[in-house]
């Protein structure tokens, strides 16, 4: 039942709205099927599966709002859910930031957001996919730990003002860490797609295995400012905080206007329109891009459209809530899902070849904010850190802790490579000068 068609979903939502006695009512239906499998020490450790459809109803009386949810769809349950939302709304305080529900909207099409091949995955597929990587590591006497997770589903919205939305989407993510048995080498690789048939777990495991073998007997070099080549997985993480996601997460107009953002201006106002980064930095979002296709409507029904956030180093747009957009009289743009950093044509290998002295970083880890005033973050390198000399990887180096701001980093840009998908975004490898490593770590 989990992936309802547009007509099935809208039929349920229409029925929900017909039960409403509120001034305004919006109903949203969301369903997913999927599963996961996790391995460690070259064997499966845990696995799971899920299959669920949920309905959320928001009812409003004036500026009072209430939300209730349910996951059964007989008439009695639907009526009860609507009534509960209305009861909660009547008891709720008036929202000073109330905005009326949106009316009908135009949404762009993004057919690549869903793949039937991902929706058809079963437990045997998952076991086979991870078994291939485990077998490779067994053969090479290495130890792997991996995670495969897939999901396919839909989201549908309808409200009493005439808004209607429906879209299907799917995704699969695989990550693998390979370690040498003596614990002196570790390598990592990850990839994510809408379409599971693009995933090659064997190739990714082979990359991680090669990095594990290469990273043994790492040499310690002094912390300090270095030229670094950051692989895409070092710039954006699937599951953890990251430097580029931190930057994109800080483009909120209200925080900037309220004086508590790196985009706040001395004396008031914000820095939209100012050049804050190297002129080669351009970041935009486009939910129809076939590589990272995603929902074309936001949680509150606003359309996601192609939007330029940073163009040639200049901050072009900030995202905002509908309330703040109206209050501040600024463009009403929702926060994007995935985003695209424009790059060049150079491969990672080309970038290494063009580097006289530098450090190649596979992955950054445990990235946490230190100072929101400057967007300073700390974290560490992990799972494959190498010294580059005269265009070649010379030897592995011990891991470093860094303290760096993505704002400073994107001003110290040396080169941009070819973007690849990472965590639902398109991210190029970057070569950056004067990246600040502050101490050494013994961790492998």
């Amino acid at each position: 039942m989990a992936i309802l068609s547009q007509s099935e979903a809208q039929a349920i939502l229409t029925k929900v709205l017909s039960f409403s006695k509120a001034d305004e009512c919006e109903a949203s239906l969301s369903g997913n099927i999927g599963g996961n499998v996790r391995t460690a020490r070259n064997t499966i450790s845990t696995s799971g599966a899920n299959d669920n459809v949920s309905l959320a109803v928001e009812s409003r009386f004036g500026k009072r709002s209430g939300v209730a949810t349910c996951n059964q769809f007989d008439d009695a349950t639907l009526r009860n859910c609507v009534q509960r939302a209305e009861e909660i709304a009547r008891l709720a305080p008036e929202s000073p930031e109330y905005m009326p529900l949106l009316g009908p909207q135009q949404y762009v099409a993004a057919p690549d957001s869903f793949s039937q091949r991902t929706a058809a995955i079963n437990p045997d597929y998952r076991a086979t996919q991870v078994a291939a990587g485990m077998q490779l590591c067994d053969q090479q006497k290495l130890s792997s730990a991996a995670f495969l997770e897939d999901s396919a589903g839909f989201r549908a919205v309808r409200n009493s003002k005439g808004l209607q939305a429906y879209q299907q989407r799917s995704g699969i993510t695989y990550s693998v860490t390979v370690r040498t048995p003596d614990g002196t080498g570790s390598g990592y690789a990850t990839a994510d797609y809408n379409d599971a048939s693009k995933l090659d777990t064997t190739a990714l495991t082979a990359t991680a295995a090669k990095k594990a073998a290469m990273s043994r007997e790492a040499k310690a070099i002094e912390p300090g400012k270095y030229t670094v080549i950051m692989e895409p997985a070092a710039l954006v993480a699937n599951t953890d905080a990251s430097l580029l996601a931190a930057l994109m997460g800080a483009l909120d107009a209200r925080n900037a206007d309220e004086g508590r953002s790196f985009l706040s201006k001395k004396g008031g106002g914000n820095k939209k329109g100012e050049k804050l980064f190297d002129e080669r930095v351009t970041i935009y979002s486009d939910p129809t891009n076939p590589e990272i296709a995603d929902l074309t409507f936001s949680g509150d029904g606003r359309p996601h459209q192609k939007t330029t956030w940073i163009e040639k180093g200049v901050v072009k747009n900030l995202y905002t809530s509908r309330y703040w957009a109206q209050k501040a009289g600024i463009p009403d743009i929702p926060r994007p899902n995935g985003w695209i950093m424009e790059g060049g044509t150079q491969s990672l290998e080309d970038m290494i070849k063009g580097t006289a002295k530098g450090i190649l970083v596979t992955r950054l880890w445990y990235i946490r904010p230190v100072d929101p005033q400057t967007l300073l973050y700390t974290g560490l390198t992990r799972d494959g850190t190498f010294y580059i000399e005269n265009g070649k990887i010379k030897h592995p180096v011990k891991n470093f802790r860094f303290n760096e701001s993505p704002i400073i980093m994107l001003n110290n840009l040396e080169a941009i490579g070819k973007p690849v998908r990472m965590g639902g975004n398109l991210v190029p490898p970057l070569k950056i000068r004067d990246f600040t490593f502050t101490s050494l770590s013994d961790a492998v």
Partner: protein
Amino acid sequence: MKRRDFVGLTGLATGALFLPSIPGFGGALVAPERLLETVDVAVKKRLADAALNAAKSAGATYADARIGRYLNQSIFTREKQVQNIANGESYGAGVRVLANGTWGFASTNDVTEAGLAKAAQLAVAIAKANSKVQKDPVKLAAQKGYGEVVWKTPIVQSAFEVPITQKVDLLLSANAKALEGGASFVNSSLFQINEQKYFASTEGSYIDQDIHRIWPTFTVSAVDRASGKFRSRQALSAPMGMGYEYLVPKAKDKIAGPSGSGLVGYKMSYDLLEDITAATREAKQKITAKSVTPGKYDLVLDPNHLGLTIHESIGHATELDRVLGYEANYAGTSFATLDWKAQKKPYGSKVVNIVADKLQPGSLGAVGYDDEGVKTGQWDIIKDGMLVDYQKTRDQAHIVNQDHSDGCCYADSWDSVQFQRMANISLQPNKQKMSVDDMVKNVDKGIYIAGRGSFSIDQQRYNFQFGGTTFYAIEKGKIAGMLEDVAYQANTQEFWNSCAATCDKDDYRLFGSFFDGKGQPAQVSAVSHGSATTRFNGVNVINTARKIG
């Protein structure tokens, strides 16, 4: 409902915008009265037996069923307004089985005998599919069945019984104090959790537990438009395994910080209005506080700060699944391997005694039985500076030649598979009398740090960096004004070996981590860390101020 579904759904609601970003706060949104209901234990036993029988019939050699109602209420305010009040209920069952020596797990929100039986059959099918690529069969430490038993967090008053208006009034009164004191912005919130957990296994345990947790917190921000600087100060409260009594301040629970700091620490009750008044004063002071000169300092760390350092550098490092490599792909492994332990190197100085305690009163991790039916207790992790034991589950005990689990198994929901999670891990106080002023008076050049701040540690728990909420310079035995831009970097073993002294039990307090993340898919857990104020000598302090644009 899965949290990720909930995340997608609630974006449409003006009232529900905040909840999705908070792990563990999913579930169906319900009327507040629903939070006071319970399910008859006889019904739960019948349902659990349906799952266990179905699992055995399908070929399982072991099975456990967890029927859980996970209830939560969260209240969010900002300045003079309520942003959101949400009441969540997540009700369902998870069945874990061993078949062909391999784990299988499945869950269902169809809480009927047929629903649980179907989940049990699916769990067995998954176990059998996975067993084709499994090499070593799972070995469980022996565990006797306890029959029908109950356990309840020893609370005075359930937070869910307190009228919402009373709780909203408290938060808005606190916000008013901040605004009167000159705060630019203030956010305050109250999280309340009740886990009604029923566990049954094929070994004959039927365990009914009622677990309560609460966390009041706030952030006060000061913005200086002229200089463009902004600073914030967070609450010095701790999330606790308590009822609403935590929010009824008592004089006996207040501990003065070092003379000259004006700070107050809180034990088993919290004075929100007092703390937010102090926070507002400090947030404004932080704008003009002196920027720290980097270098080596003796650090005097308040328990509400040190708890996070204990959590990251000892709590996670001594989890046996990390030690063995089961978390290698995500949170990482540990330096404290079995080989490292055998070398008998000191983890810390002689004054470092770390105890794991799953029953500590007021703690977040207190339960009578864990999520695989093991009765909980207390055990030593570090004794006189030496690592003596790890934190284990039933399927790990044999790896370290032990015959019992420590009761460290936990799942954050009925639809999450249980796995090894951290116990309350605490630093024992000084048996000799020592107050924080006694400690500070002997420090020549140091920094006193209170509250949680930035935190980061490597994947084997060697190198860490911590910030804090407030920082005070110590010069020649006295507090000498506020500092800013402070973070310390250290290596776990060097740091704990530099531990010079702890204050006594009168200064002992709990710190809590309400949303500790681990595993893939990620699960949260809540855990406390107790300590008294503690001194560390010669720690490297960096200055975190930068210039941009």
